[in-house]
């Protein structure tokens, strides 16, 4: 393999045990330069432990990993110098201003002072934080905190960026904004490894997704491939009045065929369906005089992926296989 083709992030047979508990079990993957790699899985699946091993914060029980060509166990300093980490909880200093946080980490990276100053200003501007740069982080909103946290990880222009659940706890708008920022980084050639609990996030950002459950890889592929495995979107109608549920059900069957009716919740679920079907159904319900509380497409969730991949839901697997 030539130097150019060598993966920027590489894990080979990673195992991490805490006592009797195996948090990560024989995980291998490769991330090519400039691509986005998504680790998808429920809470406790081992995603954070994988990130901690890749970023030298945890030592693998077995197996090895390389980041930017450096072994995480034998060359941790070189790994640290070439990567940035945005941990699960935004680890910025609440009592420092955004600018001070950037300069703190830049100084610790050993960058020349002038470079630290100019990069800090540049990052504040790029992350729409220039007006809040001299406010203490304690007074930031959740979205601003996440952005400054990410900006701090970028102060040394790392070739590789690890993001552990970067959008957990963010409102939808801040989430979309952060996705834009991450896409910008990728365009600049940064290699990203991110963990997420949300299929749509992995779908939006990742070139390759690995689904993790109980520390094991249970599926791997592009977002499209995974969604194919987990079934298409479904169409959900919530009828306003109980006495119209059956009427609506009959109407829906006429359009999409087999449907599922939850009479108590006044909820009708139809498989598949596209936006055209959605529009046509909306029109027919209206013509028939059926009042509707909600009508929309439901995309496959992480649960659906798990259901498709493992035959049971994420929560159920968690209960079944809890270590003794």
């Amino acid at each position, binding site marked *: 393999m030539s130097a150019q083709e060598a993966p920027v992030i590489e894990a080979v047979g990673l195992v991490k045990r805490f006592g009797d508990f195996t948090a990560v079990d024989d995980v291998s993957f490769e991330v090519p330069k400039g691509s986005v790699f998504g680790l998808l899985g429920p809470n406790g699946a081992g995603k954070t432990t994988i990130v901690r091993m890749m970023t030298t914060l945890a030592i693998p029980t077995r197996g090895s990993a390389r980041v930017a060509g450096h072994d995480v166990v034998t060359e941790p300093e070189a790994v640290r110098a070439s990567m940035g980490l945005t*941990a699960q909880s935004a*680890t910025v200093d609440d009592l420092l201003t955004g600018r001070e946080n950037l300069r703190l980490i830049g100084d610790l990276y050993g*960058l020349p002072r002038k470079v630290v100053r100019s990069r800090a200003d540049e990052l504040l501007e*790029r*992350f729409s934080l220039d007006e809040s740069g001299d406010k203490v982080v304690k007074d930031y909103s959740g979205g601003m905190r996440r952005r400054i946290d990410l900006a701090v990880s970028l102060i040394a*222009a790392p070739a590789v960026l690890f993001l552990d659940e970067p959008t957990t706890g963010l409102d939808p708008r801040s989430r979309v904004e952060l996705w834009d*920022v991450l896409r910008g980084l990728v365009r600049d050639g940064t290699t990203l490894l991110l963990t997420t609990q949300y299929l749509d996030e992995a779908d939006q950002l990742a070139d390759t997704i690995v689904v993790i459950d109980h520390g094991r890889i249970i599926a791997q592929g592009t977002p499209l491939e995974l969604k194919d495995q987990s079934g298409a979107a479904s169409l959900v109608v919530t009828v306003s009045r109980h006495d119209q549920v059956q009427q609506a059900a009959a109407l829906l069957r006429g359009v999409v065929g087999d449907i599922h009716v939850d009479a108590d919740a006044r909820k009708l679920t139809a498989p598949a369906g596209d936006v055209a079907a959605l529009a046509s159904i909306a029109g027919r319900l209206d013509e028939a005089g059926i009042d509707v509380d909600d009508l929309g497409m439901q995309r496959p969730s992480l649960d659906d992926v798990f259901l498709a991949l493992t035959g049971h839901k994420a929560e159920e697997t968690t209960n079944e296989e809890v270590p003794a």
Partner: protein
Amino acid sequence: MSAVTQTAVLDRTAPRPTGAGQVRQILTLVRRNLTHIKRQPEMLTDVTIQPVMFVLLFAYVFGGSINVPGVDYKPWLLPGIMAQTIAFSAFIVAIGLNTDIGKGMVDRLRSLPIRRSSILVSRSIAALIHSSIGVAVMSVTGLFIGWRVGEGVLRGLLGYGLLLLFGFAMIWVGILVGSAMRSVEAVNGLMFTTIFPITFLSNAFARTDVMPSWLRTMAEWNPISALTQALRDNWGVAGAAVRADAPWPLQNPELATIIWSLAITALIAPLALRAFNNRTTD
């Protein structure tokens, strides 16, 4: 945000990180801790208002009842409260370190190309500065209640040097407690039920002569007593003289303070480093 999607966020032609020299790492982190004090000056109450309050409480409320024959209690008390204040350096380190570990700040620092020891050294220096502010406030307070450095500049400085040395030893206790405890509340609980009474079980607030013999033995061998005695001797505080049969540490308080400081460091430092490494490695 839109700017992000259109222009390069990062300029990769700029210098690559090399890892700062350790001195720069430490200074950078010390500055961070001092900025905390600047932003939250109430952090200093433990070394300012609290000891001043103690001086006033003991000097004016209990002072009349605490019998130190033929001696003005207030200037006699002051070195004891300074010794207590410096012992609380352990408290300051433990709270700060525990908070940084709990909030993930230590992990962030460990993910950088810096030496792990910089994290501890900077914490320790910041704590010593924090405590020294307290000692300075105490000194000024002392001037108002009749305390003076009466044995010359050199012996005066020796006193302050011994305070710092003992503070250095107590910092290891702080690193141990801060690394081993699971929460700031646990740190508070442990420190208040140990360091606090230990500083009272000494000659800092009352003469040991009149204590029951078992208590007197404990109090006179307490490192706080040696330090307090050394301060009283070197600052020429009236009533500093100890009785002829006082144990060795009170007869040789400077040397005793040095030995105690080295012994505490030798015993606690390895445990503290192990606790910190265990806590921050998995």
